[in-house]
Structures are given as C-alpha cells and as structure tokens.
C-alpha cells in the first residue's frame, strides 16, 4: 500500500487531505468514512459566543452563490463540551480553527485550548476584522499577522 503520509512540523497526517475549515462536520459523517481524511479542521469558533451576520446570509446568482456568515460561534466552552467529543471518535488529528477580534483574545483562546487534550494544532483565521486596526483584517497587514502568530506561540 502506498504511503501518502506527510509531516507538517511534527504533525503527522496519514495523507495530505486536509479539508477546509468546517466542511466536514456531523452532517457528513453518514456519507463518507471520516477516518479516510488526513486531518479535520473545525469550523472557526471564538472565545465568546457570537451570532454572526444578520439574515439572509446567502445570495443566489445565475451560476453561483455568495455567502457571508460572519463567524457564527457558540464559543470555546460549548466547543469543548459538545463539538470536541464528536471529533474524538475519529482517528485523524483535529485542527481547531479559531478567530478573535484582538491579538490578546487570540492568545487567550489558544491558551484555553492548550489545556484541552485531543487538539493537534490550531489554525488562525486571520481574515476576520481586527478591532484594534479599524476593523481591517489581520491578514492584510504583515505586522498584525506576525503579532497574532507570536501571541499564539
């Protein structure tokens, strides 16, 4: 059998298939065998609950659709209590996708997750608004990006 395993800075995946954030959740568990994935990446969640954008969040176009969900999240404690046990039933490592409006909140959230077993890595969703920089996304500014990564570490 061919070995498709990859090593990402010490994180070993059985294969390089790492779906985008939130695309493999409980709704797909009855459709495919989740153990065939290289890793899970959760839907992005935040430290505190947030409702996301007002409705409607989706717009149908002639040949496509647009959506703007606005990071709907029940918060980290809800994630730990209700979502994490679902993923722990499967073998692929779990990557937690997190977001925050400030650098400090990224750090606080990462610190909370570091206390929780079963999370192999953190994905920083830095396309969200940075309220310390007039709402511009962290990812737009290299310095802001570096600040978040440093705080996470």
């Amino acid at each position: 059998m061919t070995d498709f395993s990859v090593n990402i800075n010490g994180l070993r995946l059985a294969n390089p298939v790492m779906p985008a954030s939130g695309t493999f959740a409980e709704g797909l568990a009855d459709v495919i065998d989740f153990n065939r994935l290289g890793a899970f990446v959760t839907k992005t969640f935040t430290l505190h609950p947030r409702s996301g954008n007002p409705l409607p969040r989706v717009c149908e176009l002639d040949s496509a659709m647009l959506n703007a969900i606005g990071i709907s999240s029940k918060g980290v404690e809800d994630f730990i209590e209700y979502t994490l046990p679902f993923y722990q039933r499967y073998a692929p490592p779990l990557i937690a996708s997190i977001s925050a409006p400030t650098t400090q909140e990224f750090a606080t959230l990462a610190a909370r997750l570091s206390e929780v077993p079963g999370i192999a890595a953190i994905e920083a969703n830095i396309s969200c608004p940075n309220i310390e920089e007039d709402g511009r996304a962290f990812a737009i500014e290299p310095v802001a990006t570096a600040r978040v990564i440093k705080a996470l570490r």
Partner: protein
Amino acid sequence: MACGLGMCYCCVRPMRDKESQTLTDKRVCYDGPVFPLHEVCYDGF
C-alpha cells in the same frame, strides 16, 4: 438552504427556547426542517 448538511450556517433561523425564552440560531436543514410551533419566531413576534 445552501449545503443542506448543517455545515454552512446559511439557513439558520432564530428559535425560541421554551424554558429560558432565549433565542438560539438553529439550522433549518439539519436541526429541522420541522420545528415545534413554540420555537418558531418571526420578526415582530
């Protein structure tokens, strides 16, 4: 509904918890599509 699998959160609607009376977004495609009448909230109610 966009994904129909409960993952994209496009189809959420605010539903009222019977006990606490608080509103929680529920996914029509995954948590529903049928909901108890007392949970369903509309603008102005």
